[in-house]
């Protein structure tokens, strides 16, 4: 059996009366690419935050490569070799592209090696022309790409991306697809997305969230053609 990169058992998150994640059992194999979809408020981001340590789940457990990481702080989880992009852009706005990526590289390498890794990633993501610019002045698509660079430079074996294609133009999405395939050669990925076309172009297995629960988990084509999933997306009663 292949190694399990990420696993959750009965992961539950309550906010007062709202159950944002409801007994979620999730399993991701090494180097698997999984898309997470679901209507707004389905609990995808909450599930993400419980895995990444940005929130502590009310109940349930999280395992990464067999290590229980439930309730760990984000820096410990990231230190395991987990790359994370949150739904809202999280970058260092007044610092340069180079400095942003260098800081991410420095966590896992010495200063010199971090310089080299940074150059490599800047080349890979085609950020050379803007590498000295501050992040605050960049276009949305470029900022997204830099954030992917931050994630990639640490050579993670598990990558969690919350809506990486949100707000991107067609050209940028195409580029993103390429980058994701590149990352997938080394790492397992979980990608939350709304953009169906994009999902079709990258996904094999898709997990559908609805009202905090896993509604279904199947091959992308079966999910897309499923009447229940369609109803959920259109807001009808399933």
């Amino acid at each position, binding site marked *: 059996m292949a190694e399990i990169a990420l696993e959750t058992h009965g992961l539950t998150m309550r906010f007062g009366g709202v159950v944002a994640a409801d007994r979620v059992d999730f399993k991701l194999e090494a180097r698997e690419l999984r898309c997470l979809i679901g209507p707004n408020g389905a609990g995808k981001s909450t599930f993400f935050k419980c895995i*990444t340590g*940005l929130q502590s789940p009310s109940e349930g457990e999280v395992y990464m490569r067999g290590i229980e990481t439930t309730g760990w*702080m*984000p*820096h410990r989880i*990231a*230190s395991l070799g987990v790359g*994370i992009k*949150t739904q809202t852009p*999280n*970058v*260092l*706005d*007044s*610092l340069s592209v180079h*400095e942003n990526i*260098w*800081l*991410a590289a*420095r*966590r*896992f390498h010495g*200063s010199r090696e971090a310089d080299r890794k940074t150059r490599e990633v800047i080349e890979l993501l085609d950020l050379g022309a803007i590498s000295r610019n501050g992040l605050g002045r960049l276009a949305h698509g470029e900022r997204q790409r830099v954030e992917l660079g*931050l994630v990639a430079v*640490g050579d993670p074996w598990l990558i969690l991306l919350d809506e990486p294609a949100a707000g991107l133009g067609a050209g940028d999405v195409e580029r993103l697809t390429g980058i994701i395939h590149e990352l997938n050669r080394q790492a397992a990925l979980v990608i939350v997305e709304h953009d169906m076309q994009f999902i079709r172009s990258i996904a094999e297995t898709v997990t559908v969230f609805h009202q905090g629960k896993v509604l279904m988990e199947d091959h992308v084509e079966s999910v897309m053609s499923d009447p229940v999933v369609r109803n959920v997306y259109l807001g009808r009663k399933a």
Partner: protein
Amino acid sequence: MPGDLTRDAITITLVTGVLIWVLPLIVGTYTLTVLAIYGMLGLSLGLVWGFGGILCFGQAAFFGLGAYAYAIFAINIGESTVPMILAVLVPAVFAAFLGALMFYGRLGDVYLGVITLVVTLILFKVINSTAGPQYVIGNARLGGFNGIPGFPTLNVPGIPDAYIWGDRYFQVCAVLLGLVCMLVTALLRSSFGRIAVGIRENETRMSLMGYDVRARKTAMFAIGAAIAGLAGGLFANWAEIVTPNLFSLGQSAEIIIWCIVGGLGTRLGPVLGAAGLAYLKFLLGQQAVVDNALVTGLVLVLFVLFLPKGVVPALSALWRAGAGRRPRGRVRQRRRPPRRERLNG
């Protein structure tokens, strides 16, 4: 990077050297000494706040602790070297505990401000109420609001009889300020400093990269306190008395104003802000027409309104605008020769 550091070190050495030589021709060394000490104190908060992103309302507490630690140990030990080291260590250790408490407790920025403020107030009250003869540490009477006078002042290390005072003492303080500037420069160029600036920018991102934000902020806080403590120890030697007023909220507020006026996020700004405003205060102190606090307040308001980033960032923006034209000219000149070659060939 190491090349840049060498260049910075040379610049700081030259500037310090020239200032030690020139400034006494204009201002008395007694005044200059305290300006240098305040410059160091300003730099301590400038580092923690401007680069570490930690707004501390109690930087005066570390300054006061440094001064008291010096006075108390100098009385007990009878020479100055060990007390001076303790003036650095005592506030640093205190800040490490306080910082750990705050940062590991995941306190928000507002509470951080409140706690540092309250701790300063408590220290002030506690020291203030130690007037009775029962409050002694070794041979040192704490003296309450009267403070502690009459402790041995700075001597040449290892020779307790060779006191350093007057012009010499000014030179020592100025050189130490230069050294602290160099240390801060080296720190900011190091990975530790760059990571600290990243944390100032976005704590969540830095922790998602795998950095333990709590530990790093605690360390930064303690380093700032160590520098403030050194300034405090030097101040004790200058004033030859330490009083609870060192811990006053007024003193803390002044340090914050120095940083704002001089320019946050720069090394030079807080030093200049401190020295400039303290000198202004000194000049105003020699007349009785306008109130001192009023002028300080007015300066702050004017800066917030018209120069919110402070003096140094404004000057360096001007400098860059002026220098920006020259390099472009140079690039043009460099491009010409290849064309000529092509014409020739």
